[in-house]
């Protein structure tokens, strides 16, 4: 299994400078590594540079401790699954899967053995004689996967492989790909713009924006301790509620969006800068329904989404739209003022100017410790 190392990797085109800026990254053997970012962030470009389809403008790319900057794709010993699957429309499923093995002149028996193995693994045994146009989207996706399985490459690159599938199939394929990867153990670099995919599949995630690394870490770390406002609002669904805030009355009270006033626990306030403009964040599941004892605020509801197992409620807070996720079914009407419990231990504090995290929620830290 391969390990991949990127040292100060960068990419510029003639017309466009710095698509990617000084990317430093180490991907361990057998790791499922997810590159996530909005469209145009350079994640696909980075993947194509690792594949060798895109020239490297600067920096060093090492696979298994060997410099591969100069190697063509076929000598990098990897496989790739494309967004549109890149199946050959004139070849049958079997021919599609064996295309690479034939090109590399692998023995006939070995070819058949690997074909059988891969087809069984992804459930294509019945469809080997079909042409791609006679397959459904999910089946095509599996052919593309089988093609990368038969290559026995120690490194597999996936470029938004699930984005052409419908939602149900997508969650099904997520599990399948993950299981396959665990079973075969190949190192995987997976590009997606979907943060749900990133959270659910990745051993580690790298969030990329504007060609710069925003944060690298385990999914839960990214969720609980986002390094900056970008990661905070990108990871998690619905996105984190964010508001401008400043302290009043000697660090005891915090005013959010000039509307909400929150009492801050002294232990939390201790680490915060006194006079700088702050931005606070709070996850939707931490904006709790208030009981008679602990209600801190009353907020006006602007939208209600009944999801059956939970209720998603939107409030107007200053210029921001905040969302709360409450378990169970709540009979709430738009326009109603509902009691809310907002506790300072769930707050994340960011520097408003740089956007970087100053202090994460103290509650989340405690939970993490408990789990470990």
């Amino acid at each position: 299994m391969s390990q991949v190392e990127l040292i100060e990797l960068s990419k510029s085109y003639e017309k466009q400078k710095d698509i990617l800026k000084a990317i430093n990254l180490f991907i361990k053997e057998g790791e499922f590594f997810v590159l996530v970012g909005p469209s145009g962030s350079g994640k696909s470009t980075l993947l194509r540079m690792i594949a060798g389809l895109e020239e490297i403008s600067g920096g060093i790319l090492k696979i298994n401790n060997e410099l591969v900057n100069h190697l063509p794709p076929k000598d990098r010993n990897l496989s790739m699954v494309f967004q549109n699957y890149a199946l050959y429309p004139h070849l049958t499923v079997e021919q599609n899967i064996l295309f690479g093995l034939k090109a590399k002149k692998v023995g006939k028996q070995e070819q058949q053995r690997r074909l059988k193995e891969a087809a069984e693994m992804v459930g294509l045994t019945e469809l080997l004689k079909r042409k791609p146009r006679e397959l459904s989207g999910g089946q095509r996706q599996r052919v593309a996967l089988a093609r990368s399985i038969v290559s026995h490459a120690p490194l597999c690159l996936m470029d938004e492989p699930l984005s052409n599938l419908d939602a149900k199939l997508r969650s099904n394929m997520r599990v399948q790909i993950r299981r396959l990867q665990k079973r075969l153990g190949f190192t995987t670099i997976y590009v997606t713009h979907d943060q749900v995919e990133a959270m659910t599949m990745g051993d580690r995630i790298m969030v990329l924006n504007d060609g710069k690394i925003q944060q690298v870490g385990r999914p839960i770390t990214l969720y609980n301790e986002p390094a900056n406002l970008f990661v905070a609002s990108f990871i998690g669904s619905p996105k984190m509620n964010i508001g401008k805030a400043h302290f009043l009355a000697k660090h005891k009270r915090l005013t959010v969006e000039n509307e909400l006033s929150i009492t801050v626990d002294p232990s939390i306030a201790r680490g915060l800068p006194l006079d700088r403009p702050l931005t606070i964040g709070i996850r939707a599941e931490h904006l709790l329904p208030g009981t008679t004892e602990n209600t801190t605020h009353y907020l006006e509801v602007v939208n209600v989404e009944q999801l059956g197992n939970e209720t998603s409620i939107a409030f107007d807070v200053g210029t921001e739209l905040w969302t709360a996720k409450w378990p169970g079914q709540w009979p709430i009407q738009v326009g109603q003022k509902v009691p809310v419990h907002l506790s300072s231990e769930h707050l994340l504090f960011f520097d408003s100017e740089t956007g970087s995290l100053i202090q994460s929620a103290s509650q989340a830290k405690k939970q993490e410790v408990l789990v470990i």
Partner: protein
Amino acid sequence: MSMSSLAIQTNEINLEYVEQVKKRQRMKNLLKGVLFLLPSIILFSAFVFYPMIRTIYLSFFLTNTSGVTTVFVGLENYINLFKSPIFLKNIQSTFLFVLYTVPATVIISLFLAIIASEKLKGIGFFRTIFSSTMGISVAAASVFWMFLFNPTMGLLNQLLKSIGVEPIGWLTDPNWALLSVSVTTIWMNIGFTFLVLLGGLQSINSYLYESADIEGAGYFYKLRRITIPMLSPTLFFAITVSIINAFQTFGQIDILTQGGPQNETNLIVYSIYREAFVNYQFGSASAQAVVLFIMILFLTAIQFKLGERKVHYQ
């Protein structure tokens, strides 16, 4: 009881009314369709359908010099044609000509298209050059080649002389004339075929090549397993059009050889022209035209039958 039967009745009336409206809409659609087709129907009728029917009609008659039918002779025109050694020779020349020009044109154009589809600096210049013969009229190209073929001052014979080879009567030697005309035709047809094939090559999804690169396919493997099969609909089109064009060659024959020497380059369309407008045998000329029509129709039909199996439409 009466209430319910009344309700059923009104429902039936309503259904009938719906049917009527639907029918009217279908008629309207048909009328609109015909209206859109009208320009082509008029043009095709005037310049294709009427002449075709007229030609078939004429082929059963003898005519006077102005083309007016005189005697009905039935199939005699056809029988005479197939008894005439000159006409049989013309058909043979035509087939030879197709054989010389079509494969060469397609293979050369394919080669040029493949090298011109590489992403290199200044490739646009070469693309322009390779497709430029498309913009040259048959007459101009023929005159240009006539100078090259000129027995004494022509560049080709000058070259031969400089390396000490006997000069060749390119257009006057019966062994060379058909070949010379073929070379001219190949040169003239490359432009169009090149452009069609280049378009076909560029519409092949680049993901397929990237995927093949990663899977370790070499240049010729990609050419054989991806490029040619993916290009097959375009190739099929190029070959069909080239064959039809070759059968209908006229201009370069008229300018370069006028069917000579010894009827060696008297291709069927030129022969039709001679028969009709030099010998004033409109009946016999029409019969030849019908024979040519049937030949092309038959060949194209065979091509489609064979092609279906080999061509991969997306």
